[in-house]
């Protein structure tokens, strides 16, 4: 950052974060010492215990970083705070760390362990942010760690973490390209991801790491097409660009046989296209003979159809991406749709206009017809910046045709009066181009330009001369008048380029103006020494040509000019003079060339072609940086040519996925909610199957019917609202209920075609309406009270606490269950049936595993309901075996007072997050002990204790039991406290075995499997073991596991497996244990738990118990 010192910074006094002007600025050497002082002060603040001071220091440091000041010497002080609890301090430390880690690699390594810990945090957002920072630290040593972290995160259950993993891939790749192969594996895995959140990011990673591996896309192509509309804007751009390239390699050119397929409309539309097009068509016609008629691949069609709605995006980049896709991939007749959207972008910011106009300019060359209806949108405003004006001019010129040229020229003519001279010059050039392209107006243009020669503005005149010169070259014979006119101008016009052009013209066509030409040369000879170089060269040219055609009159003049040139300062001119002299003046030595002098000088010169600078730019993918610059930018992927024959389309086929695979509730919701928004599936056949594959639970028919249900629901709501505008509040409420009413029976129906189910629904609705009409007199209150009643009523099935919550959260997923309930109940449930309830304000639905656990599919819910009666009640599952007692205080150290404790495995009623500990006091002394109580608990942060009520008196020889609660925060840290009697204090501590930190919960087998599916990867620990001798049957396994850990048994079909489920008391994380017995006394033990520490410890304990 040494360069930063070169920038003397402005006054930063206004900054609220202090005056961070104390970077190491050599220029301010005088205050070096104070600089260090200031930094010391920052260091002190960072070392302090107060978060507010740390925060203040970090803010000042970040402000320095923002200004480009060097703050690297604070690195050691800052990096210490990486584990700070305060979120904002932490964030700012991250910002700092990412900025300077590369410079201070050794010190940066100190922070790595914090992130590694963060990677295993139960909170997905913390995992994601840890991965984000870890992967942003550009230190080569940690490449293996990053690789591991990315791999793990790629199979994380949270889509957000997976998204972060996708972002991390290019970071690692740029740090160490050798990891490419491994990274491609991760990309491949993530490409198969079915969530919209991940799609954009992984395609971005694909484009940066392995854009050439196009085959990875095959299997995901249809899914990407179908997800596209729901992906966030930026992801859409990347995906569309990639799919454009993909389609170019996989499909046939849709325009190849177009003359056959779309004769009528097409021709009319593009009638104005020039000869080039005709040739094309001929060639195509020839090709046609060989080919069979073109049929578009359904996948190709899918892409076009699914991208089209995005033309309506508010994001200019998305619109442009779709536009280029259509331009490169769509049949000619369909490309037109993009014009309107592109024209819309012209009303956006000028930078957007600039880019869009560049692309439109390229498009107008190939497809003029498309933009012709929007001609007026390209008219230039006086307020446009010059660069925009010039681009618009370019587009207007490209759009000019016989039919609209008069309008365009009239418009051009007004532009010439503009005060912006660059723009005027460009306009004149544009007129010249119109004249060359459209024969009919050539004369008109020429006349107009000639009139401009009398313009007062010299620049206008000069530019006109240059353009006229070019035009005249096309048909000089007819225009000797103009040449004469221009010859006169030479007296007045001073712009060198214009003078040179006139001289060239006169020289070239001196035969048409035989009288004037020598006179012009005479004048020029006089002023020769004062002319600009390009003019001098043209004077020499003129002299030579005149000498060859009219040597009588001009011989002396030519000699004179050549002599002047001989002593010119510019060697080019001296050189030219020498060359011309040798060539035209015959001498003895003159070689064979001089014979051909006339041929050399007066050869017919081809007229210059006035071309658009945008011609042929479309070989770059439109919308790309390379196209804009007209050169290949680094990392640009060429747009491949269409293949001659289509590659095998079956590579995109995807096997029908297994429905048993379970995914989180959120994803299911996503489908349910979004489908009706954008549901795209009507009338789509094969290719949509991947869209359906998104749905992950329940049968396919179920999800289908659900979809149609909510779709028609909303349709109806509109209908109703239109017909019955004047309805009052109550009635509206009723309606809502009815609507839901309708959707319910439908859901239970099996899949039907959209239409029929819709109709049916309507009928049903009518029926309901009639039924309801009688009860409309019912007061609102009544129905409301009904609702509350039923809500509590529905829980009557004596379900555990968690089950209740489950019900509330996922009411939509269990409609059939409700069908069985009473009518009244149904009605009230309906309100919550609306999908939107799923968005009910839970602070972070994904974060705690409780919610995950709560998610359950329809099927399993039903199963759960039916099983509730048979499932063992919690009390019955509690271990019947005698509870193990632990010693808290030995009677010798306790001076006669013996204390033992045990975990009685009862819920601690005052606080459900606490573990109940039963304490048993025995008084072995001969006198009574008084005032037994707890004092001064010393606890780890977060741990809490609920003391037992003081025992007033314990008579000699007696014992007493009390219960206290301890929240261990799901750790096996000991709780330390003092046990006091009226005379003594004893320091004691209670350390729980890991198995006591949990409490059983009840899951069905399906639920268990589903939850287990979500706790894979890092969260699963598994080991083989040999079962102990006494432990060969189910009963003993259950007994031993139950003795070790407070878990509930999960009913299970197979007799080989024993499953147990529980959750930790404090945070409610799921704990799942599976013991699968194998032949010969072996077994496989699997523990799934989000808290990996607990999982590992529990594993050890159970292993130990089972192997005895």
């Amino acid at each position, binding site marked *: 950052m040494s*360069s930063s010192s070169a920038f003397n910074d402005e006054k930063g006094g206004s900054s*609220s974060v202090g005056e961070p002007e104390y970077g190491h600025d050599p220029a301010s050497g005088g205050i070096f010492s104070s600089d260090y002082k200031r930094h010391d002060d920052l260091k002190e603040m960072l070392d302090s215990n*107060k*978060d507010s001071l740390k*925060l203040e220091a970090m*803010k000042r440091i*970040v402000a320095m970083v*923002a*200004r480009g000041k060097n703050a690297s010497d604070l690195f050691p002080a800052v990096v210490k705070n990486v584990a700070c609890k305060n*979120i904002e301090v932490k964030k*700012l430390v991250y910002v700092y760390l990412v900025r300077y880690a*590369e410079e201070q690699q050794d010190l940066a390594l100190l922070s790595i362990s914090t992130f590694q810990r963060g990677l295993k945090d139960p909170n997905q*957002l913390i995992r994601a942010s840890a991965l984000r920072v870890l*992967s942003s630290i550009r230190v080569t040593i940690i490449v293996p760690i990053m690789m591991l972290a990315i791999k793990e995160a790629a199979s994380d259950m949270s*889509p957000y973490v997976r998204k972060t993993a996708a972002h*991390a891939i*290019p*970071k690692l790749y740029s740090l160490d390209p050798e990891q490419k192969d491994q990274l491609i594996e991760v990309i491949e895995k993530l490409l198969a991801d079915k969530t919209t959140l991940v799609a954009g990011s992984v395609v*971005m990673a694909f484009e940066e790491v392995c854009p050439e591996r196009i085959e990875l896309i095959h299997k995901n192509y249809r899914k990407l097409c179908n997800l596209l509309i729901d992906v*966030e*804007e930026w992801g859409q751009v990347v995906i569309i660009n990639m799919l454009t390239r993909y389609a170019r390699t996989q499909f046939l050119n849709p325009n190849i046989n177009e003359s056959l397929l779309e004769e009528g409309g097409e021709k009319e539309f593009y009638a104005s296209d020039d000869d080039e097009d005709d040739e094309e068509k001929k060639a195509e016609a020839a090709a046609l003979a060989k080919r069979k008629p073109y049929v578009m691949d359904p996948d190709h069609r899918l892409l076009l159809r699914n991208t089209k*709605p995005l033309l*309506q995006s*508010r994001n*200019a*980049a998305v619109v442009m*991406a779709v536009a280029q896709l259509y331009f490169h991939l769509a049949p000619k007749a369909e490309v037109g749709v993009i014009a309107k959207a592109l*024209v*819309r972008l012209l009303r956006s910011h*000028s*930078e*957007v206009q*600039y880019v869009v106009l560049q692309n439109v300019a390229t498009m107008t060359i190939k497809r003029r017809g498309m933009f012709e209806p929007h001609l007026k949108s390209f*008219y230039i405003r*006086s307020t446009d*910046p010059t660069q925009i004006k010039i681009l618009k001019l370019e587009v207007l010129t490209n759009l000019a045709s016989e039919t609209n040229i*008069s309008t365009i020229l*009239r418009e*051009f*003519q*007004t532009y010439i009066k503009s005060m912006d001279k660059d723009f005027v010059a460009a306009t004149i050039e544009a007129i010249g181009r119109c004249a060359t392209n459209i024969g009919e*107006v050539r004369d*008109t*243009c020429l006349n*107009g330009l000639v*009139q401009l020669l009398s313009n*007062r503005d010299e620049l206008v005149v000069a530019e006109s001369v240059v353009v006229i010169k070019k035009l005249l070259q096309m048909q000089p014979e007819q225009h000797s008048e103009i040449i004469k006119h221009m010859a006169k101008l030479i007296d007045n016009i001073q712009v060198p380029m214009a003078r040179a052009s006139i001289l060239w013209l006169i020289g070239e066509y001196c035969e048409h103006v035989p009288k004037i030409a020598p006179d012009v040369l005479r004048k020029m000879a006089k002023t020769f020494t004062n002319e600009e170089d390009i003019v001098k060269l043209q004077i020499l040219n003129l002299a030579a040509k005149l000498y060859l055609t009219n040597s009588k009159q001009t011989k002396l003049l030519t000699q004179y000019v050549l002599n002047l040139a001989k002593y010119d300062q510019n060697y080019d001119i001296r050189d030219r003079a020498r060359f011309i002299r040798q060539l035209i003046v015959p001498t003895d030595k003159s070689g064979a060339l001089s014979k051909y002098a006339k041929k050399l000088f007066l050869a017919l010169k081809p007229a210059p072609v006035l071309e658009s600078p945008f011609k042929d730019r479309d070989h770059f993918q439109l919308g*790309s*940086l390379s196209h*804009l610059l007209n050169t290949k*930018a680094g*990392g640009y992927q060429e747009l491949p040519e269409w293949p001659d024959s289509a590659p095998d389309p079956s590579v995109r086929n995807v096997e029908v996925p297994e429905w048993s695979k379970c995914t989180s509730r959120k994803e299911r919701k996503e489908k349910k909610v979004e489908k009706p*928004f954008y549901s795209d599936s009507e009338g789509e056949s094969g290719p949509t199957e991947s869209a359906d594959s998104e749905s992950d639970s329940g049968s396919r028919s179920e999800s289908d019917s659900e979809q149609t249900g909510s779709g028609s629901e909303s349709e109806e*709501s509109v209908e109703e*609202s239109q017909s019955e505008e004047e309805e009052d509040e109550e009635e509206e409420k009723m309606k*809502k209920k009815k609507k839901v009413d309708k959707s319910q029976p439908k859901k239970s129906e099996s899949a039907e075609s959209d239409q029929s189910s819709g109709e049916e629904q309507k009928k049903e609705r009518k029926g309901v309406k009639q039924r309801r009409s009688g009860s409309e007199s019912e007061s609102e209150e009544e129905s409301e009270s009904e609702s509350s009643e039923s809500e509590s009523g529905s829980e009557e099935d004596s379900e555990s606490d968690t089950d209740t919550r489950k019900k509330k959260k996922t009411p939509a997923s269990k409609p059939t269950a409700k069908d069985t309930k009473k009518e009244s109940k149904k009605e009230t449930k309906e309100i919550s049936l609306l999908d*939107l*309830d799923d968005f009910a304000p839970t602070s*972070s639905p*994904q974060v705690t595993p409780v919610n995950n656990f709560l998610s359950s599919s329809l099927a399993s819910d039903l199963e759960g309901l039916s099983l509730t009666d048979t499932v063992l009640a919690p009390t019955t599952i509690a271990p019947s075996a005698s509870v193990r007692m632990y010693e808290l205080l030995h009677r010798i150290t306790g001076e006669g007072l013996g204390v033992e404790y045990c975990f009685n495995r009862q819920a601690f009623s005052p606080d459900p997050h606490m573990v109940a500990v039963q304490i048993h006091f025995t008084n072995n002394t001969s006198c009574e002990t008084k005032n037994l109580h707890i004092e001064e608990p010393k606890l780890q942060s977060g741990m809490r204790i609920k003391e037992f009520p003081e025992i007033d008196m314990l008579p000699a020889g007696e014992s007493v039991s009390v219960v206290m609660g301890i929240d261990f925060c799901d750790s096996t840290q000991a709780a330390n406290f003092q046990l006091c009697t009226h005379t003594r204090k004893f320091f004691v501590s209670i350390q729980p075995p890991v198995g006591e930190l949990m409490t059983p919960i009840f899951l069905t087998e399906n639920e268990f499997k589903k939850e287990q599916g979500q706790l894979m990867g890092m969260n699963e620990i598994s080991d083989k073991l040999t079962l102990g001798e006494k432990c060969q049957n189910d009963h003993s396994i259950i007994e031993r596991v139950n003795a070790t850990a407070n878990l509930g048994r999960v009913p299970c079909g197979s007799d080989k497996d024993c499953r147990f489920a529980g959750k930790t008391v404090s945070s409610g994380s799921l704990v799942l244990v599976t013991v699968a017995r194998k032949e010969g006394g072996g077994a496989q033990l699997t523990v799934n738990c989000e808290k990996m520490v607990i999982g590992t410890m529990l594993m050890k304990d159970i292993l130990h118990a089972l192997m005895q």
Partner: protein
Amino acid sequence: MIHSLFLINNAGDIFLEKHWKSVISRSVCDYFFEAQEKAMEPDNVPPVIRTPHHYLINIYRDKIFFVSVIQTEVPPLFVIEFLHRVAEMFQDYFGDCSEVAIKDNVVIVYELLEEMLDNGFPLATESNILKELIKPPTILRSMVNSITGSSNVGETLPTGQLSTVPWRRAGVKYTNNEAYFDVVEEIDAILDKSGTTVFAEIQGVIDACVKLSGMPDLTLSFMNPRLLDDVSFHPCVRFKRWESERVLSFIPPDGNFRLMSYHVNAQNLVAIPVYVRQNISFFESGSSGRLDITLGPKQTMGKTVECVVVTVHMPKVVLNANLTATQGNYTYDPVTKILVWDIGKLNQQKLPNLKGSLSLQSGAPKPEENPSLNIDLKIQQLAISGLKVNRLDMYGEKYKPFKGVKYVTKAGNHGHFVVTNWKLHNILASPFYV
């Protein structure tokens, strides 16, 4: 993708830099300064500048250049759109996007930039999500923060990013549930001297301010949706519903947002609400000129035309103007050569008139160009296209929201009338006339 960002003020000071990948020296901005110098005006700086090792993509907004550094191929619009989104976010957070505001809030700016891009790829650009992550500064909060040392970084982690409605934050609660919609239309028209419309179109936007609790699902329908020629939507709008039924169905973001922009094209439909009679002429001798402008209302459907301002860009030779206005004030800036006549409300009975003489630079030839007039105006309670909102329905929540729709027609900012006075007399004499 986006490697680094530099914010540069008009004076050429780099007052903020942020790098998302490895650090790029700020000397790369020298290429930008070079281009800026060449372009003379900020508007003319090319948005994409090529340097030997990088590409600079820049936007100019609110007197600040946002210069981003790119190393490899990326769609330029992607970057441009993103930079504008950044500027809008600053505006959203700090009220305006000025250099002072950015410097005052440099830490928040930095946090925002950190969240918006990850490795140069956009991560969170929805205002709703960002506001959950990083609270916008308010006077109260900054005071509380400075006393208690608490922070403006959200304590709870955002849910929006994880939800299926990524543009809406969860747990929204209001005591007054309200939804307001502003239908703002701008006319963009060019008239010729005789008052004939050469070109006219209407740009409209519907800006919404929705403060509703929970997860409301709104449906907005129009009386005459066929009027709309071209539309673009906020991502929350369900496109299929629009295609099939022409209604806007959406779960709104919380707070202010632009629901849709539209375009009404039909030439004859565009009723120009005012007419202008004008005569600006310059005399060949005596270095003077005359100006006479009268405005009158026309087709305003009974509504008052307000905030009428006429702007004339005079030719360079006009030294001063000596005019009298029957209504409003006029100013002439001899440096910029801009004549501004602020009329205010347009009076039906007494038409405002501006009349007088112009003094020209002596000896200079009579200016060739005839200045055109730009007219800005505003009409409350009227959408000039005739677009009308039919009704707004809410599903998914039980309360009854307060709803309101406001219509405004403007000719300003982007849209304006340009009354030219060259068209007619030139066309007849035109050598180009075919």
